[in-house]
Structure formats: C-alpha cells, structure tokens
C-alpha cells in the first residue's frame, strides 16, 4: 500500500540517476471517483530544476525513490493555477467532520494507489498507524504490538466516503455523510461507525436496513458490536441478529450479559433462535464455536438432475453451496460432491455415484488453528463438523476460519478499497 507520507520523504532522480530534489507535495486533479495525481513539487532542487513537474515525467516509483523519464535539464515547469489542490498542503492533517459539523478526527495520512499510468487518491487514513507512519515509527509500533500479542489495526476509509467541502481554499474539510454511508461497503461503514460516539452509531444503524446493518455489525469489532446492540431496542436488535450469519450472531450474543442475551434470543424468530442457541453451546476457539449451521445437505437417493431441482426448490441461504453434503436417512454424513461435479454430470447419474465417500471432517472440539490447517492442507472451501455418530452439525467455511486465525483488521486491509 502506498501512502502520501512515503512520497513526501522520497528522493527524486532523473533518467541518469542524478538527484533532482526530494518530493515536497503532490498536486491532484479532483475527479470522480478518485482524484488523480497530476504533478509533483520538489524541494532541495539543484539549479535549473523546476519546482513543479508533470507527473507524466515520472517513470517509476521503487524503493521510496521517484525516478523520472527525462534528464534534469529537460524538465519543464508544470503550469500552476489559483485553485490547485495539493495533497499535503490542502488535505493532509485537515479536520473530518460529520454531517452535523461535529469534529471526528483528522486526516492522518492519504492512501494512494497506482492504476494504469495514474496514481489515484483512494483512501484516507484516520488511524494511529497513520500518525506513527508520519513519525517514521510505524514499523516499531507494529513490532511492539506483536510482542504484546495484539495486532495494530490500520484504519482507512475510502475516498468515496468523504466529501471535500469546496469553495474555501484555505480550509478543506471532509465530510462523512450519513446518506452516502448506506451505499458504502459494510466494511467501510463499520470503519466509520467505529469512530463515532454511541448516539451517532445508533442513528446510523437506525438508517440502515436489516441486511446492511447485519453486515456492518459483522465487520465491527466486538466492543463496537456490544455497544451498538445495547442502544437498539430488542425487536430491532433481534431483526438484525436474524439477518446475520448464525455463527456471527452467536459470537455476538456470547459477549452480552446473560439476561440481555436471553431476552434477545426470545425475541428472535424461532428457527434462527434455535440455530444460535445450538451454537452458543459450543466453546469458543473450537470448530463448534465457529461453524455455521447453514449448509446444503442432500439425500443420497437423488439423481444429479434431481439434486439440482432440490436446490432450486429449497433456495438455501447457506454461506456456501459449492459443497453439497450427502446424508443417509439417519442424517449421517456419507459423502460430499461439489456443485461443479453435479452440474457437469449426466442428469441421470445418481448422487451416490458422483460423491466422494472419504469426506474430510473435523469434530466440534477441534481447535480453531487445527481446523484452518485442515482446510489449508486439503485445499477445501469448507469442512463439515460431525459428532461421534458422524451426524453433520455444521460447516466451517474458509473465510470464517481465516477470520479467526488472521487478525480481523488484516482482512480489511487486504480488501481493495
């Protein structure tokens, strides 16, 4: 990931590797969705090098060094305008306010991303890591955090999520609009919600539909989750919990005080409540604690065509339907087949001939790390959790396992903004 602060410390060299100064600032052209870098300002220049040069003369950006396509003598000054927007001067360190004009946080750093030949301004860093990066202390802080056994989350919000307030060249303020919020990816909403006070969080959640609210809640930290639930009335909270994946809902409920948990489960839809209650019975950190009861099981007697028809009729909302688990009449797991096997097979072939009989499984008390190891070893997208009688209790999907073994924020970092 590239940040403005990396560029601001960078040396620039011309085509003959001769130093032409260090980067002072980057000029952008404001455009939707992401502003594009058009020029670079240099300081500590040798004589004859213009102060501002066109970004198109930049050949490469490697190892914190900006190398240009031209010789120092061939560089021409980039024309400047009154309403130029400079990243460091006009955006970095500026205040971010919410729609009511209340101050939230400052722009600690800016995230830049190369796209084709362009460098785009794609995100705003509002976290402590941004601050430490500016002080050249990011690596050290991360190492310390790892020593202390924690991870050090990156806090980035997409440039989409903010509106620069134009018209006042001296102070550029950014604005997070509630109305715009609902259109964002739930992971971005969660990032912003994490920054707000309790009242604002509740207001934002009131404005989201159940599905988006559920997704946002799933992406939020445990602490934020419980705080938000504390402010929602039982009925609305139950609606959101129902919309969440049962395993996520169970995790959340496990963090609540017992009486509140029971109240919420009582207000939930019977089926969903049952799923969640079953999951709550398993210990955290085990396959049981992380599995979801939503999976696709098909009876062994069906043909390939029948199985597809069965899926169409049931319309399962399981997290993954790529694996179809085959069970006998007593509910025992006897095989598995992939959706692809099913679709490419001759319609009349019985499922029992298509399925793989030696199914890789884990038990409810298998530790999280071991579950992940099984998934990785056998290259599976999901693994079924079975009890002593090989009755399938649920499945652990690869993304749930990844969530548990990878620090939560790392996932978000990996997601392209």
């Amino acid at each position, binding site marked *: 990931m590239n940040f403005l602060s990396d560029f601001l410390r960078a040396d620039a060299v011309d085509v003959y590797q001769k130093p032409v100064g260090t980067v002072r600032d980057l000029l952008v052209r404001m455009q939707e969705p992401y502003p594009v870098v058009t020029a670079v300002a240099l300081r500590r220049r040798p004589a004859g090098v213009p102060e501002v040069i066109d970004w198109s003369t930049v050949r490469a950006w490697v190892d914190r060094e900006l190398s240009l396509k031209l010789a120092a003598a061939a560089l021409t000054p980039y024309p400047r305008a009154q309403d130029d927007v400079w990243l460091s001067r006009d955006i970095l360190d500026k205040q971010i306010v919410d729609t009511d004009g*209340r101050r939230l946080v400052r722009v600690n750093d800016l995230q830049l991303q190369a796209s084709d030949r362009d460098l785009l301004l794609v995100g705003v860093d509002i976290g402590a890591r941004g601050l430490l990066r500016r*002080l050249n202390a990011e690596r050290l802080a991360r190492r310390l955090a790892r020593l202390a056994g924690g991870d050090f989350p990156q806090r980035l919000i997409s440039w989409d999520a903010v509106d620069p307030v134009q018209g006042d*060249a001296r102070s550029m303020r950014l604005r997070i609009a*509630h*109305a715009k919020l609902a259109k964002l990816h739930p992971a971005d909403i969660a990032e912003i919600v994490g920054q707000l*006070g309790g009242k604002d969080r509740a207001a934002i959640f*009131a404005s989201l539909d159940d599905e988006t609210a559920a997704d946002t809640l799933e992406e939020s930290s445990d602490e934020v989750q419980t705080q938000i639930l504390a402010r929602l009335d039982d009925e609305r909270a139950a609606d959101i919990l129902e919309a969440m994946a049962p395993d996520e809902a169970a995790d959340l409920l496990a963090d609540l005080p017992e009486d509140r948990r029971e109240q919420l489960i009582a207000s939930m839809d019977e089926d969903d409540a049952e799923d969640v209650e079953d999951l709550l019975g398993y210990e955290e950190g085990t396959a049981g604690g992380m599995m979801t009861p939503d999976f696709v099981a098909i009876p062994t007697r069906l043909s390939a065509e029948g199985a597809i028809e069965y899926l169409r009729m049931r319309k399962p909302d399981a997290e993954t339907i790529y694996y179809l688990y085959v069970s006998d009449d007593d509910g025992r797991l006897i095989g598995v087949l992939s959706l692809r096997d099913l679709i490419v097979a001759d319609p009349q072939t019985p499922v029992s001939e298509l399925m793989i009989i030696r199914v890789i499984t884990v038990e409810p008390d298998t530790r999280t790390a071991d579950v992940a190891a099984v998934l990785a070893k056998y290259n599976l997208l999901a693994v079924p959790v079975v009890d002593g009688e090989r009755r399938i209790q649920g499945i652990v999907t690869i993304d749930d396992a990844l969530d548990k073994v990878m620090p939560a924020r790392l996932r978000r970092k990996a997601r392209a903004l």
Partner: protein
Amino acid sequence: MPPPPRTSAVRRAARAVTPRRRSGATASSRRRGGLWRYLAILGPGLIAANAGNDAGGVFTYSNTGAKYGFSLLWTVIPTLIALIVVQEMVARLGVMTGKGLMDLIRERFGVAWTLFASLVVVVANGGTTLAEFAGVAAALGLLGVPIPVAVIGAALMIGVITLRGNRRLVERIFLALGLAFVSYIITAIAVHPDWSAVARDSVVPGLNPHGTPTNAYLADVIALLGTSITPYMQLYLQSSIVDKGTTEKDYRYVVADVVSGSIFAEMVAAFIIITTGSTLFLHGAAGQGVDSAQTAAQALAPLAGAHASQLFAVGLLGASLLAAAVLPLSTAFVVCEAFGAERSLQNRFAEARLFFTLLIGLLVLGAGIILIPRVPLAGVAIGTQTLDGILLPVLLVFIILLANDRRLLGRRCNGRIYNTVAVALATLLGLLSLFLLASTLFPSLVR
C-alpha cells in the same frame, strides 16, 4: 445486495442526532454596537491575561516587590507591550481562521511538531494545575479553611461549572473570578505607597540598586516576564475565541478585549509589587524576598493590618481558582485540536468525550496529588517552568509564521512594521525564556 437506502429515514435520522451548534454571541447583543458589542465580545482576552497572573505569578510579583521594592516596576510597561502584541496575533488568528492554535500548528507544521507541543502542554499544564491547587489550599488556609475541604471543594466547583454550565455561564464565572484581583488594587491603595516614587520607578529603570548578584537579578527579571507571558495563555485565548464563535467583523472588539485584558493584568502585577514594595521591602525583606505567596500575605498582617492580609489571600484564591479552571480547559482544547476531536463547552459530555475526559482527568489529578502529604511542589515547579521555557519560544515562532501566512489571514496578515516589532519582541522573549530555562536547569549560573 442491500436494497437502496431509504433516503427519508436517513435524513430523519441525521436530523435527530444532535441540535445544531450555535455561534457564541446572542441575537440581542448582535443588534447593538459600541460598548454593548464590546461587552458581548469581552471575555477571552481578559480571562487569558488574568489567568497569566496565577498562583505562581502572585508569588513572583510579591517576591519582586519584597526583594527589590519599586526598582523593577519599569518592567511592567515593556511586558505589557509584549503581551499585547503576542495576544493580538493569537486573537487575530482565532478570529480569522475559526481554528485554535494547535489546529493551525497541526495543519501547517505537521504531526511531529503537534505531538511534541501537545505532549509538553499536557505535562506542563498538569504541573501548573498542581501549583494552582496548592495556591487554593494556601489562600483558603489563610482564611481558616482546612486543606482537604479547600482542595476538594475547589475541584468540585470547577468541575461542575465547566461540565454542567454552558459556555456563557462559564465565561461569566471566570470573569467574576478575575474580580478578585481588584483586592490587590485595594490593598495597594490601603498601604499608602509613595505614589511619586511609584510613578518615577514605573518609567525609569532602576538597575539592580541593592547589590544582588547580577545573574540572580537577571533571573528575577526574566521570571517576572516569564510569568506574565505563558504558553497556556496563548493556547487558551485562541481556543476560547474560536469556541465563542467571534468573527472578523468583531475583530476590533477582540483587540479591545485583548488590550484591556492585558492592561488590567499588568496593573494587577504592578499593584502587587507596589504593596509588598512599600511594606515588606521596607521591613526587612529587602534583598531577601519571600518564600511563598502566603508568607507574603501573612507578613502583611502586622504591617498593614489583618484586612490587608485577608485581601491578599482573597486575591491569591481568585488567581489560583481561575488558573486551576483555565489550565485543564486549555489542555483539553489543545489535545482535541491536535487530533481533531470534538471540543466545545457548548457540548454535552457524550458529544465530546475526549474533551471532557481530559478536563475532568486533569482536575482530579491536580487536586488529588495536592492531597498527598509532602508532594515536592518545588520540584514540580522547576519541571513545569522548564517545559514552558522550552515551549514558549517554539510557540512564538509558530505564531509569527502563522500571522505572516497570507493564505490564512489574507489582508489581515502582519504588516511590515508590526511584524518587525513582533519578531523583535518574540526573539527577545524567546531568548529570555531560554535563559530562564538555563538558569533553572543549572542554578549555579545565577548564584
């Protein structure tokens, strides 16, 4: 895929979040001009200048008078000019940008300077708050109140006022606390000083007439300047002008506020020097000084009567209380400005958590530590003086650079002549501050 957002619900929710913030001045005062407008704008400048005369300030002035008589009175007018110039630039920055000093430092000078300055402010202001509570305890002790009652009572009072009261009420109470300083003027008149000598020594520099070692004398002169112009005054002034919402059209009233506040504050300083200079100085303290503000007040009783002593204690109480309230407030403003968190006395707790948490935390810490027996207050004082001595030159450089920024201030940026004066004064203040720093760290220099 989530369904499209329900815009009406979104808008309703957004509206329900919080009431809009209101700008400071009331509608009724806006219609009137002249004196009424001045009275409406009045506040930040007067409070900031008065807060500079804190417990430490009262001690320094008392000591100066007791040790040197009137012969250092001449420093008052140059100090006043420096104070006005610095405060005016700060007030102008606040009025024109609507941002606090630390806001501007962060936006213009980046993260490293901001962290450095805020860290120094937090520690230095914390230490000074401690000294103010010690001042409250001493003053109320002279008036017969036990220390725990005095300290806890003062902390509770300040906490309740800043937390529960709105900005206007807080400002009025702070102004009222400043009235306690009038007691120094009354005491000074009551001790019948030689007014002709006062008039002469206010203008004619009396250069070290009593044979004090030169370095020690210089250190005393600098301490006198240092206590009148402190970092927290500048930071508080700009933050509170911004919080009040004063705008450019009221700029001249802001200047009037700053000038009148500075004059009042320096008058108080002069009258304290006059009081001890015409009492303690003439009765054995010459060349020695006093070791604390309450010793000065106690020593006044046999010389000028019990009332003078009590009036002096009341002045010390007002000075300490005001600064004990302003310091945590200024610190909270600074930290929130540095990191962009919401801060305003207009807000309720839930709307500006960091702000109020810092405010309360500093109060509790300041008052709590004073209640511990045998706290090394002298050591704390040296530490805070050192930090302020480091910070003041840095802040002065920032203030001058910002006041010259045309993008920030437009036509109201420093003029050439004004800037020359400001730079000269700031350089002098900065050098003196560094000298004070050196003399604090290496006391052998001044002995």
